[in-house]
């Protein structure tokens, strides 16, 4: 059984991610947002289940598909949206955009435009925690594609030999950009690779927030108690292309529809209603609140000023 408060937090977080992403996609299609966009729609249960198992001071690092991780870690939607608009009030003052949102005050150590590039850095944050004895855990998010990078191998090996307080969360959405998993690695379960590093490899149903939460909780507890890292593979799926504009010749609409039957939000809502934890009107009102919050964030981004280019020149070596 699940407590109502936790269930509410799961639902709100997943819906926030979904609605934020849907709005961002629309704004991007309408040429209101510059830059690139990699939608997290479909994968909401992973970021939510993992981040809600963390303590507020814990660290996460993220990927080019990072909005979900940011929202699940509780960062400001206003500052996120302003960053997508390239405004001075955004997290990176318009310098980073969608692929580089960070909020160090919330332990969100940065999204990353290079596949696998954040894995060694997250490992270093965990090293800092271990040396400072601050009892923090780092979660490092990456995808199936990144699990083929050398940075993945070097980092997991180092974390294992030094017993660092980190959980490596591989979001296996079955595609490395546009290449199916079956074409980019000869294994089915990426968690199997953990054996090579002498750490546990565990699998969660990435379409089920409760499954992700339970598996993550265990791995996070293990890391916090000094027993070392875990490789957690969440089996998931992205509904949209690798990037907004991806023609997706590598999969069929039927495949996508099949996965949508496992939708993490719709199914969770159904579960909550079945269990009589929430009523339909309750969910409706909670959804409206989220829509209002996101509309407020969009308005904030839209009306915020652009940064002064001169100011940007003087800040490299502060």
């Amino acid at each position, binding site marked *: 059984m699940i407590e109502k408060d936790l269930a509410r937090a799961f639902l709100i977080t997943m819906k926030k991610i979904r609605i934020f992403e849907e709005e961002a996609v629309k704004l991007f299609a309408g040429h209101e947002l510059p830059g690139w966009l990699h939608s997290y729609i479909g994968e909401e249960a992973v970021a939510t289940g993992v981040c809600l198992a963390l303590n507020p001071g814990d*660290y996460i*690092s993220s990927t080019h598909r990072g909005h979900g991780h940011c929202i699940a870690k509780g960062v400001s939607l206003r500052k996120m949206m302003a960053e997508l608009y390239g405004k001075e009030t*955004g*997290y*990176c*003052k318009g*310098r*980073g955009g969608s692929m*580089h949102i*960070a*909020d*160090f*005050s919330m332990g969100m*150590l*940065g999204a*990353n*435009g*290079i596949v*696998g*590039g*954040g*894995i*060694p*850095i*997250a*490992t*270093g*944050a*965990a*090293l*800092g*925690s271990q*040396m*400072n004895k601050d009892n923090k855990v780092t979660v490092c998010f990456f995808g199936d594609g990144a699990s083929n990078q*050398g*940075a993945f191998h*070097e*980092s997991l*090996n*180092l974390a294992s*030999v*030094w017993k660092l307080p980190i959980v490596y969360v591989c979001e296996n959405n079955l595609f490395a950009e546009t290449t199916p998993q079956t074409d980019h690695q000869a294994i089915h379960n990426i968690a199997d690779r953990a054996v090579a590093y002498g750490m546990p490899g565990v699998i969660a149903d990435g379409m089920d927030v409760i499954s992700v939460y339970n598996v993550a909780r265990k791995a996070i507890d293990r890391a916090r108690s000094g027993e070392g890292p875990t490789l957690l593979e969440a089996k998931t799926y992205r509904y949209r292309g690798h990037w907004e504009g991806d023609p997706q010749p590598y999969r069929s609409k039927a495949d996508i529809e099949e996965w949508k039957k496992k939708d993490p939000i719709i199914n969770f809502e159904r579960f909550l209603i079945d269990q009589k934890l929430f009523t339909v009107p309750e969910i409706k009102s909670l959804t409206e609140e989220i829509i209002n919050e996101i509309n407020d964030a969009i308005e904030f981004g839209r009306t915020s000023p652009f940064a002064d280019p001169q100011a940007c020149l003087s*800040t*490299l*070596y*502060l």
Partner: protein
Amino acid sequence: MRQITFREAIHEVLDYELETNSDVFLLGEDIGPLGGAFGVTKGLWEKYGNERVRNTPLSEVAIVGAATGAASVGKRPIAEIMFCDFLFVAGDQLVNQTPKMRFMFGDQCQLPLVIRTTIGAGQSAAAQHSQSLEGMLAHIPGFITVVPSTPHDAKGLLKTAIENNNPVLFYEHKGLYNIIGEVPKEMYSIPFGVADIKRAGSDLTIIATAETMHKSLRVAERLQKEGFSIEVIDPRTLVPLDIETLVLSVKKTHRAVIVHEAHLSYGPGAEIAARLADEAFDYLDAPIKRVGAKDIPIPMAPHLESYIIPQEADIERAVRSLIHY
């Protein structure tokens, strides 16, 4: 004054920082019981233990990434990359990650980290252990690039590097580790972006770094006997570059030779020459000359290696060609 080696000068700063700053730690390949491939960290592992002097796997990506991540959460790591040739195993970290983070994330974090590495040929170590690649990452905004030539400068610049809140690349020429020079016992800092006039002169300016600074000094001494007065300046940091001091010197001597062991084409000398041409064109009485390693991989056999690497004769030839221009 007390005289110590270049190696001892660096060791002294590392020892002091480990002793006085609990956020400082070292990580790198073979830096523990062995004391590093060039003996710089010898004794520190015994003194400070595994936690502060961390022997790593042979994993440059993880070393640079871990140092970057630890720095981003408040530690002050000093990473050792055994040879600068190995830096580029960690290419993504060094090009896309470490130098970008502060700016790209809107100044949210500081990155107080130092990467010490070695440059230079002269040991018949061939093409993958002999390069001088200090110019390559000077091209990437976000790094400070330090190239000391004397024990005194090495000590003061490393102190500044560790105190700085930005990523610093600190290049140690292997041929300099055993040279001896005057070094104060107490700690001191040398600011970045301040060139040092190693020898004053009035007829021509040589701008040289690392071991080529010493070669240039010897050339200058020899030519003095023929009545030529050569000024030798070491910029000490390539980023930031003290262009003012270089321009002032050229305005006085009207002739400039730039020397480094890095390959000639697209090397640091090209940048310095372009800036001098920009800012001192009206004062020049001759073209700016560059002396660097020939543009081929560094060979093993000693006679081939010394043919590729700039020698005193090469520097002297360049100087004479300008004096008689």
